[in-house]
């Protein structure tokens, strides 16, 4: 099944509906930003169109980022880098999530590799993935508090009796 990347972009833009934007970036393959509600429709479509590999799934925190100050505000985001082995082309999908309610459709059922990547995004950013089979922290201890890669994260001074001191020796 030959796939034209322009057709895929058009299809995604149509399904994603209002609020979908194509970002102009110097990256191989298009970068599309879709509303989070549409992700549950967009991702299966992309899988169907031949994007069989999820290269990476990254959480990101836009709080304070100069470039996006105006539109993203302090939202969180998830970036999906997809690739098609058959067609040898890439596509990047982004979603922005409100900080108060960072919840998004889980793609773990479509690309099982996302299972661990999503757990990591949850671990580091507190992004919750709806329908994830095993939503636990992955790298940090399960009773860790806070989301370390958020820009407003405060390093805790103590964890289970282990006191963290800065360079001056202050707790």
């Amino acid at each position: 099944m030959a796939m034209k990347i322009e057709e895929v972009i058009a299809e995604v833009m149509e399904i994603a509906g209002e609020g979908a934007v194509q970002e102009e970036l110097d990256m191989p393959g298009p970068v599309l930003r879709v509303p989070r509600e549409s992700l549950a429709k967009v991702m299966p479509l992309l899988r169907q169109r031949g994007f069989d590999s999820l290269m990476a799934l990254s959480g990101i925190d836009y709080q304070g980022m100069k470039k996006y100050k105006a539109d993203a505000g302090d939202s969180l985001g998830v970036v999906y880098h997809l690739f098609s082995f058959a067609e040898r082309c890439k596509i990047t999908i982004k979603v922005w999530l409100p900080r108060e309610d960072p919840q998004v459709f889980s793609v773990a059922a479509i690309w099982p590799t996302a299972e661990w990547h999503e757990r990591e995004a949850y671990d580091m950013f507190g992004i919750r993935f709806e329908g994830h089979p095993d939503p636990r922290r992955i790298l940090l201890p399960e009773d860790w508090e806070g989301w370390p890669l958020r820009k407003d994260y405060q390093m805790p001074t103590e964890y289970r009796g282990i006191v963290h001191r800065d360079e001056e020796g202050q707790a």
Partner: protein
Amino acid sequence: MSGASAEKRGYVLNMGPQHPSTHGVLRMEVHTDGEIVTRAIPDIGYLHRCKEKIGESETYFKFTPYTDRLDYLASMNQNHGYCVAVERLAGIEVPERAEYIRVIVAELNRIASHLVSFGTYGLDLGAFTPFLYAFREREKILDIFEQMCGARLTYAYIYIGGVMRDITPKQLGMIQEFVDYIEPKLDEYDRLLSYNQIFIKRTANVGVLSPELAIKYGVTGPVLRASGVDWDLRRDDPYSIYDRFDWKPVVGRGDVGSVGDSWDRYMVRLREIRESVKIIRQAIAQVPIGPYQAKVPPRLKPKYNEVYCRTESARGELGFYLVADGDVHPWRCKVRAPSFSNLSVIGELAPGLMIADLVAVLGSIDVVMGDVDR
């Protein structure tokens, strides 16, 4: 409810984080029924060192040494991947000579890493001797690296815009000597281990990973190639100057069992050493005269840009997702580690294996926990 009753009957083994064959600090909750594994749940994070957070708070240059510690068995490849990503992000041109030196050291380090993997795989299956042979060979590579950059494990040699130091003719001679030395050794390894009947019995048809499953789980590198997918980023998503050399990615053929079994994963690495040797030979012959560093401001401040740049490290696709925001440090520095995705497939492969097979499969996936946990 046979599954549930089997689990009631069975045993839960806590394998790791201190266990001889978990290759570092991996813990696996292994549910067993006698010697048969019914489920294996990997638990990672024991070696988490906040690399991504550090990446966000250090400058672009200062993060290079940290990349060494990701996959500490193939530090050059990690440096290379990171530097290529930053150079794409900031639009830096690397001098020709530096590109050749990079390819040479990256391939040498790939050989060193595959040698460790070969040796430890022998250990996993109870053969001690290959391990020491592999380390004897690796020692020569480390000596060369020590000459070039003073370090033996964490080099920070490949540098944004070039390499730290120029390569001398003497060092090139050492490398040439090494590649001449290693090739006959590989035949010796084949005789000692690869075609040993017990070894074949232990690895052939064990933990067969189908190409579909591999792609689904984002498995890359030698493990993916062993499943019969002809895919190598050095050829298929070229970076640096890999498109100038004559070599072929190694694909698993199922010589003694079926395609994608543990033996194939093991063998792909051994055969890849030969391909790396080919690349090094060609690169040594072609190293041009010229500068070895580009002029890059020490306080690199790329304007807003995003890259997802992937390179072929010794273990697979090493991706860096970098977001620049016009500051001295990246806004986001996501490391897509090959071992992380490769390891995630173990839960799928484990049911039905025996405990000894689980060790064999884990060893053939060849994870480095520094890479998994970051």
